[in-house]
Structure formats: structure tokens, C-alpha cells
């Protein structure tokens, strides 16, 4: 660590984030409705304890972040680690695929939306054959659908909705 004593903004943000969670826990517990009758340990006590614990952790994290960064980071985790080329486009595809499945699964059914997720993720990880990927996706999800529905009784949403 050559740049000791330096402030590391991202890590400071993490520390502040932890403090914010702690504050929200405390504030939320403050708003709990009053309990009736004999209460040995109210619903707010344990959340307060967690909030105090997180506040302590957050303070030390912030302190480390402004005095040269988190201690004992593995080599690959230090500030100099760079996003690999194409990494951002890759995560965009995967994130988009997952968002898509969340939105579409109730509309176009499990098989199609999961196959779409498969194709998007494959694209994110570097595949360049969207149609082939989609076909593999369907070939993978169809048997799963039948296995889960017939074999395990875990019902997944319909194959395709009736109106398609």
C-alpha cells in the first residue's frame, strides 16, 4: 500500500452505507407500535442491539477508508483492480436478462422467459449466436419444466400463456 493515509471514496461509501443501515434499523425500531401486556424483552430491543453493532462496524470501516483503505485486502481486491474489457457490457446483458425474466415470467410463461434469460446470459458471457442460444435455452428449460411440474409437483407458471 503505497498511498497510505489516502481517502478511498468507494470504501468510504460502503462504510457510510453500513452506518445508514444502522440508522434505519434504529429509526424503524423507534416506530414500532407499543406492545400490550407483560413484555419481557420488547420487539425493539434486539433490533436496537443489531443497530448499535452495525454502527460500531460502520464507524471503523469509515475510519479505515479515510486512512488508506480497508486493511488486509487480497491482491485482486485492492483499489487498482480494473474491470476487464467488455465486462460492463457483459453485466448489462446478464442484469437485463434477469430483469426481463422477473417482468416477463408471469406474461409469457416460464419456458420462454427462462430461455430468454439463457440467451441473454450466454451473450453476456461472450456467445455470439443468439438464435442458437435461444434454442439451447428452450431445450434446457422444457425438460426442467416437465420434471418440476410432473415429477416434483413444484408448479411453475404455464408453458406459454393461453393467449399466445
Amino acid at each position, binding site marked *: 500500500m503505497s498511498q497510505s493515509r489516502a481517502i478511498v471514496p468507494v470504501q468510504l461509501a460502503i462504510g457510510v452505507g453500513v452506518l445508514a443501515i444502522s440508522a434505519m434499523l434504529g429509526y424503524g425500531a423507534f416506530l414500532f407500535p407499543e406492545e400490550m401486556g407483560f413484555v419481557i424483552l420488547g420487539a425493539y430491543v434486539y433490533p436496537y442491539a443489531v443497530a448499535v453493532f452495525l454502527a460500531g462496524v460502520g464507524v471503523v470501516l469509515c475510519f479505515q477508508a479515510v486512512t488508506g483503505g480497508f486493511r488486509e485486502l487480497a491482491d485482486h481486491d485492492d483499489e487498482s483492480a480494473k474491470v476487464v474489457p467488455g465486462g460492463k457490457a457483459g453485466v448489462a446483458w446478464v442484469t437485463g436478462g434477469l430483469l426481463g425474466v422477473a417482468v416477463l*415470467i408471469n406474461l409469457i410463461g416460464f419456458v420462454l422467459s427462462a430461455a430468454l434469460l439463457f440467451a441473454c446470459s450466454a451473450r453476456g458471457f461472450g456467445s455470439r449466436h443468439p438464435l442458437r442460444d435461444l434454442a439451447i435455452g428452450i431445450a434446457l428449460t422444457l425438460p426442467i419444466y416437465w420434471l418440476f411440474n410432473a415429477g416434483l409437483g413444484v408448479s411453475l407458471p404455464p408453458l406459454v400463456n393461453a393467449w399466445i
Partner: protein
Amino acid sequence: MDILASLAMGFSSALTPINLMWGFIGCLLGTAIGVLPGIGPALTVALLLPITAKVDPTGALIMFAGIYYGAQFGGSTTSILLNTPGESSSMVTALEGNLMARNGRAGPALATAAIGSFVAGTVATVLLTLFAPIVAKLALKFGPAEYFAILVLSFTTVSAVLGASMLRGFASLGIGLTIGLIGLDSTSGIARYTLGVPELVDGIEVVLVAVGLFAVGEALYSLLYQKEEASGRHRMSSLWMTRADWKRSVPAWLRGTLIGFPFGSIPAGGAEIPTFLSYSTERKLSKYPKEFAANKGEGAIEGVAGPEAANNASATGSLVPLLTLGIPTSATAAILLAAFQNYNLQPGPLLFETSGALVWTLVASLYIGNVILLVLNLPLVGLWVKLLQIPRPYLNAGILVFATIGVYGMRHSSFDLLLMLAIGWGGVLMRRFDFPVAPVIVGMLLGPMAEKQLRNALSISEGDWTVFLTQPISAAFLALTLLVLVVPHLLHARGIKLHEDD
């Protein structure tokens, strides 16, 4: 005598065709995911949790245990042939085993890893058979105060020992405890931290968090930060170990087992420490120190045999606290606990009495599983290596599809899928800055338990907080907690020293 009779009963149930089949499927799956990078036992069991709705508990738990075991077996194959350790606990295997493979001794390295895992697994299962009932009997005397103290101890150990920094471990634990708070408070009936979202009233499922952190987080992280390594594969060589290999392996296996089992069974956070301890022990004791990686040697067989045995023994050891106290000491054990809970089975001292048949069938299946794994791994190693030819895009896309099924299958909610994505991004951040993941899972599972025990303890003592210090057993556990806060510094100093030598 009592134990033998119970165990015999367990065997007769574990050897029925249906249970054998579950064991076989589990071992098969476990080996496969152990070989494949990017997918571990915790994730696999998490994805398969929905089957608990349909399959009977004995079969499902036998399968899950097989996955847990099998992953340890399979992991060594990748480490030795490809030098890509799947988990931190197989790092040492990658070190020495890959060196051996580079020098044309891949076969003996694989053999000593597999046979060592078998020996360690079997010896550790014997130890489990002997000790678990004793621990369970002891634990029957525990009241809420003792349980609370044990939970505090487990929180501390899991966060303090895993990962490089105790502070970041505690941060992860705090996040886990926070997630555990969300939902209905069972005592007061107050909905806590639900933000008015109806989906949150039931709380957040452990599977969702595990899948988000392990599958989605891992996939996103590897896209962002992992360079594709053009690692060459090493040629296989004959699996036969020479007489000298055997002579050097056997003591290393036994030492590794003896180091691994106790570390697994105390809540000391996974298989990392025992494998490193075993490695440094073997290096000190070896008659051929020149062969070790640190001395630019050709790879020492003890350096594979000992840590692999320790690795497997600690996996078995972690079943002791899980079954007798209901306390998981690793991420996979935490998911196994969730599986028990899906069946309304509460692991703990009473489990041996209320569900004795199931427990002993599970233990018997561990003996059988070890044999299955040995047979699956050694002769078929060539087949497993072929799994690595699945192209990276399809492997990862497949994992994500399974993650989606696992999460969506639980309660058919799109909200859960969005939550999984968000937690996945949180996982990327955690991985990026070296926050350990397991404390999150342990915190969210055990947090509510801790609160319940705390309340019970205080209502028995009529609000007197000193009960935790005046009860000898609970005071002892709390003292141990203090120790845990200090000891990792010493152990980590050793672990880091090991790195510096290399």
C-alpha cells in the same frame, strides 16, 4: 451397544434401493459441481431446496449430504489438473497437486486426494457416530441461556475466522442479522422492517439470499473482474501409487483427518484453517522437504494427501454441531439447516430422540456415500474432466436459469426475482472488497434464533441479565467467544506466513 444397534437400523434403511438412489444422485451431482468452477455445494443444495416440498425428508437429506461430500471430492480434480481451486479450502491442493501434475504425476496426486478423502471421510464419520450422541446428550441439559451463549460464539467464530479481516466479517454478519430481522416478530406479532411490502412480511428466504449471493453475485463478479485464464490442462498419468507414495500418504491422511475433524466440529468457520494447518504440519514433518512448492520442488504427495483429508474430515465434522445443536458452521451447513427446517425438523439435541431413524439413516448414508464417491471418482476421473469442456457462456447461463427456477419456484413471485438480482449486486460489492459471504447466511438464519433464546433466557431469569455469566456453561461459552476474538490473529499470522514463503 446402543449406538451400534441404531447404526445397524440406519444402514438397513439407507440401503433400500430408493435411498441408495438418492445417495447416488447426490454423489454424482456433488462431484460434478465440485469439478465445475463457479458453482459450489451451498448453491446446489440451495437450488434443490424446493424438492423438499415433494421428496420425503430422508431421501432429500441423503442427497444433500452426498452433494456436500461429493463437492469436496470433485474439487480436488480441478485443482490438480487445472490449477483452478474452486474453493479456498482446495488452494493448497492446487499448489502441490498441480506441481505434481506438471511433473507428470497427475495420477498419483489424484489417487492420493481421492483415497485420502475416502479415508478421512470414513474415519470422520466413525468419529461422528461416536461423538454426536454424546454431544446431543450433553446438549439436552442446555437451557436458553446456554443456547444464546453458543449462538453468540458461533456468530463470532464464523465472522472472525472466515476471510481476511475480522471487521469485514462482522460487517457481513451485521447485514445478515439485519436481513433476519425483516418480517413478523414471532413473539410480539409486530411486522418489522417490511416497508409496507407484503412480500416481506414472511421474511426473506435463506435460499433467495444464498442464490443471489452465490449464483448471481458470482456470475456478475466474474464478468467484471475475472480475466479468462488460458490454463493448460495437464495430461493424465497412471493412477497407481507406488509403495513409497502409499507410505508417505497414509500418515498424512490420518494426521489430516485428526486436524480436520475437530476444526469442522467446533464453529471455527469452514475448512480453510484445517487445510492450511495440515499443509504446514506435513511440510514440517516431511522427510522430503525439497519436493514442496516453496522449495521449487516437484510437488510433494504429503502436501496433497494431508490437506485433502483435512478438508473432507472438517466437512463431516461440521455435521456434529449441525445435528446436535442446530448450529451451522459453514455456508453449506447453513443451507442444510434450512432444509431440515423445511420439514419442520429442528436439528438439536432432541433430533436424536424425535427423529432418531432419520439421523441414523443419514449417518449410515455417509459411510455408503464415501464408498460411492471413491468408485465414482477414481476410475471415472477422465469423464469428469470432460465436464470442463462445457463452454463458459452456457455453463454460466445454465447456472442463472437454475437460480431463477430455484427462487421463483418457492412462491411464484416476481418480487423475489428482483430481490435476487439486487442481492446479487450486493454480492459483487462484497466480493470486490473482500467481505466474506457466509456470515450473511449464518446471521440471517441464527439471528432470529438468538433473539428467541435471549427472550426465553430472560423470562426464566425474570429479566436478570447476569444469568449469562452466572450459569457456568453459558459463561464458559462466552469466555470461549473472547478467546475466538484473539486466536484467529495468531492463526492468520501463520497462514499469511505460509503465503510469504511461497
